[in-house]
């Protein structure tokens, strides 16, 4: 945790930090699904699997290499694989 805090501090200092979130275990999940005009509520997780998302960073980066440099620090700090996904830019038409 201390390592993750350090990465967050570095992200903030660099102006790259937007948001960080850690998630509770997958068995705390509740799944909602719209079908036939109704919404079905069931216990999670969705989907079932050995691997699950444990948390996330939302950062600003000029390009993939910059994002990968942060992700490199993140995976070392949390000792878990980190997947980098670009967010859709909502200002793009």
């Amino acid at each position, binding site marked *: 945790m201390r390592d993750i805090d350090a990465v967050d501090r570095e992200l903030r200092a660099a102006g790259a930090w937007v948001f960080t979130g850690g998630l509770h275990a997958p068995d705390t999940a509740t799944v909602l699904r719209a079908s036939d005009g109704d919404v079905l509520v069931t216990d999670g997780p969705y989907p079932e699997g050995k691997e699950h998302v444990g948390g996330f960073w939302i950062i600003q980066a000029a390009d993939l*290499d910059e994002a990968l440099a942060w992700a490199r620090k993140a995976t070392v700090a949390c000792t878990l694989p980190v997947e980098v996904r670009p967010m859709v830019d909502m200002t*793009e038409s």
Partner: protein
Amino acid sequence: MPISGPVARAPAELADVERAFRAEYGRAVAVLARVFGDIDIAEDAVQDAFAEAARRWPQAGQPPRPAGWIITTARNRAVDRLRREGARAGKHAQAALLRAQEEPAEANEAEGKSPVQDDRLRLIFTCCHPALGSAARVALTLRLLGGLTTAEIAHAFLVPEATMAQRLVRAKAKIRDAGIPYRVPAEADLPGRLAGVLAVLYLIFNEGYTASSGDRLARADRCAEAIRLGRLLARLMPDEPEVSGLLALMLLTESRRAARTGADGALVLLAGQDRSRWDRSLIAEGQALVRQCQRRGQPGPYQIQAAINAVHSDSPTAAATDWDQILVLYDQLLIVAPSPVAALNRAVALAEVDGPGAALTVVDGLASAPLDRPGQGTRPSARTWRWRRSTWPSRAA
């Protein structure tokens, strides 16, 4: 169909355009990709420019600087089109237009951050980015830098053209959406990223050299293309010994092409090859590169493999092969890049030096024991291709 250019059988008056296409396509796309920040816009623009060249050059004659003409024409065409399309074209295209109005079309010398400035170098690092799958890297490199058509690449890799087209579209979309930059990586990332680029070139070469399927001409063309890109990279990155090492390895391997197949089309192994059919000029070029590498004293896996090939190419007969030296080189290779293939090849060399008994003991132990046999006490040879011990990095490094 020979894969030599966009026009399978060009009429004489189009030959100049075709030659310019082969020589300049990659550079033009690379410059335009920087100018517009978008590969699709760059490709369309360059294709427009070559179409224009095919119309105009036969009458007006080839301009004195064909590459400059193509780049300027492509840039103007793309700017015109983006302006015409205006707001309809979307924010992405507008951003490209804005960017193009500020970017000079000439090679950008001002940037200073990266060790090398050529636009093709940026583009090759984009095409070989680790965020792209291996098949996508190869296809993009051949398409954007080699100027091969989608049909030609599909033909070379024995996949339907539609499959290859889709692979290229997806790869380019990933470059755009994930923000893979057009940039030579920073010094800290350069060794790892350069290794990725070299792996792509060597993969293209080996597809051509060792593939058992596909027609012979197409396979030879893949090797030629890999060597062409290797020469380009060696020119752009003269300070990287592994780049020269890979080029030397490809040249020395290629020098044996004619001797590799017998009259019946069957494969002829090294020991049985007619050495008079080896290409002496490729050997001379490859050996000169290996010697350059040795003077630098920073051996790496490609340089050492090239040196092993240099020893073979020095030997007038298979029986005269300097196996002592090859064994030392395999020892060195196993230190920098341990692999089962290298270990097995080393055992072959050991059989030649110490007899089959010693080699069999090693082969028996390959599965269980780590490999460690520092090359010692070898006899001096007429020509030395191995690295001096003083320049050799310690195993811990």
